């Protein structure tokens, strides 16, 4: 971060920069989606790219998600590297068949003769006061399907580099972008590829008493909770999962073996969420080190509620600290 070239950018703009740099680096990279052209996307993530690269590389598509993802598969077979934007998390389901049965399986189906290097960008998560279907966290609905990878950056630097690495990856990658944090700034150094790969978790705050695992939009909350807990004399280690498929278990397990306790925080409903799988695996690998069951703080088993109730649905500082208390009570 000390590079002279690093600059402070909002997460959305870090992704814009990553897309622009990837498009310059490889002329097979192209962008597709609804309203990503002259408008620059509803979150302005592709702002300026249509003007710079034209309609052949920044494609405003018809309004049909299966068509977008399905034609991206075809383009990737022809050697292109499409980066698809799904406008909001709740609108990815019309493309679910293409993602689950085609994108995920084409490489396997052809015994590796065909690759489908494509990126599906999805602004995800809640807390933006939106109407129905605009605030979902569908990671578990994709993580179960072999053939897919999922990244969830939480900082501008990660947003930049994980986008670059996702585009370079020969496997299809779903990028879950922390919608609510798009305008939060952070340092980005586009000239020095970080040592930590996109597929690794990061210990972002070392601690001794318990491990707190989160990702994407929940990371600031995790760090804030650790600060608040520190004020109460509780020393939390905070891990940013970064990659949700595959999850970097070695880093998490190493931490939990030290701390003996794990709290997972995510916005998706706890029931059937990614936290369950992580809890099960970590418990298997850390059974004799655990002083408490792995606990989870997340959404309730409900459809995402209307905006004026979402504060009660989303994990917040008090709910995380409550989880920490329950974890330490054991």
């Amino acid at each position, binding site marked *: 971060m000390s590079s002279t070239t690093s600059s402070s950018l909002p997460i959305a703009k870090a992704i814009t920069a990553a897309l622009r740099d990837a498009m310059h680096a490889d002329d097979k990279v192209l962008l597709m989606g*609804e*309203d990503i*052209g*002259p*408008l*620059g996307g*509803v979150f302005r993530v592709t702002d300026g790219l249509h003007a710079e690269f034209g309609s052949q590389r920044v494609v*405003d*598509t*018809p*309004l*049909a*998600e*299966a*068509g977008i993802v399905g034609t991206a598969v075809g383009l990737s077979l022809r050697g292109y590297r499409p980066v698809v934007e799904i406008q909001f998390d*709740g*609108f990815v*389901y*019309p493309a679910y068949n293409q993602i689950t049965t085609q994108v995920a399986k084409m490489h396997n189906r052809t015994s590796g003769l065909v690759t489908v290097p494509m990126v599906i960008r999805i602004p995800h998560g809640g807390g933006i*006061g*939106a*109407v*129905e*279907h605009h605030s979902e966290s569908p990671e578990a609905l994709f993580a179960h399907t072999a053939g897919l990878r999922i990244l969830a950056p939480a900082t501008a630097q990660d947003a930049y580099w994980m986008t670059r690495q996702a585009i370079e990856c020969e496997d299809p990658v779903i990028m879950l972008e922390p919608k609510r944090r798009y305008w939060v700034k952070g340092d980005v150094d586009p000239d020095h590829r970080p040592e930590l790969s996109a597929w690794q978790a990061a210990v972002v705050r070392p601690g001794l008493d318990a491990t707190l695992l989160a990702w994407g939009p929940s990371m600031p909350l995790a760090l804030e909770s650790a600060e608040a807990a520190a004020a109460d004399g509780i020393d939390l280690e905070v891990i940013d999962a970064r990659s949700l498929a595959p999850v970097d278990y070695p880093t998490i397990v190493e931490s939990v073996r030290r701390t003996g306790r794990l709290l997972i925080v995510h916005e998706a409903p706890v*029931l059937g969420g990614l936290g369950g799988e992580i809890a099960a695996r970590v418990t298997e690998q850390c059974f004799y080190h655990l002083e408490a069951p792995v606990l989870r703080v997340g959404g*309730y*088993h*409900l*459809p995402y*509620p*209307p*905006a*004026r*109730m*979402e*504060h*009660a*649905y989303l994990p917040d500082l*008090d*709910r995380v*600290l*409550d989880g920490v*208390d329950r974890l330490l009570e054991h």
Partner: protein
Amino acid sequence: MIQLLAPDGTRTPHPELDAVLEDAGLATPERLRGYYRDMVMIRAADLEATSLQRQGQLGLWASALGQEAAQIGAGHAAREQDYLVPTYREHGVAWARGIEPWRLLELFRGISHGGWDPNALRTHPYMIVLGSQAPHAVGYAMGLQRDGVVGTGDPGTDTSVLALFGDGASSEGEVAESFTFAASFQAPVVFYTQNNQWAISVPTQVQSRVPLAQRSRGWGIPSVRVDGNDVLAVLGAVRTALDAARAGEGPVFIEALTYRMAAHTTSDDASRYRPAAEEEEWAAKDPILRLRLHLEALGEIDEGFVTRCDEEAHDLAMQLHHHIHGMEDPDPVHMFDHAYAEPHPIVEADRADYLDYIAQFEDDEQTGERA
């Protein structure tokens, strides 16, 4: 394109639709004045909603400005027993169905995901996942067939469904599948697109290089294109189509050409993608002005009526304003109420956890500590 009222209010005869309108008593001067009033009312409510959004009272507002004729016409073309299946910008349709504007605002304010009783008002909830409501409309129409309320010849019995979607939504595969089911089962459903020229920033040409009305012909579903800023053309065409559907003659598709005068929503900036000249061009085709000019030519409207409408509209806007400002946020515990219709142990456990958690703060308030 069917047009009964030119932008300057001139009335063009249309033997077929004129007969339909006359039979149904839908084009009497009194009715016309009613449509005028309706359009003025919902425009005022719409503008007020935009200003409520700016005041932070709504999370979002999707304005229907410019689409008043397309919506009031379609809404009034339906009979009471018909079932209407809107998208999320159908404020005029809702008004015609008797849904108070504040019910619409519940969704945009963020206190509920839908504001009215679909069965009582025979109007589906606003739907946000584009195209997803279209198969519901067809299924409902298949239900009507099974209920024996299609093709009986009794106008009070025969029932149909009006399925609404935008030009952008027309590209969704679920809309195409709806055409397939409707055609296959000859379901009593009328598909109705308000082609307002834009799907957010994407012009209709990206969805179809040929007139959108042509789309349904691929299934042998007859279609017509009407001037959507002409309330009489809309009324006539939609009523004709609904009557055919009710009579058991199968589905029809109608494309109403209109214009989204405002930005896509209050979050959108239309200047990024469309020229001001286009907006001006369409301003000249304003549906409200057009009906007023027609009424004036007929000598069926006077200053007094116009002023009364404006006053009523102002009152409505004020009412809306007060209603919204007075709306209390619901207790979040209600989010647990309706995930399931029957008892569900996980939801009950989550509710109990939530209540326990909340109770801590009540305790804290007493003891002054964090739990």
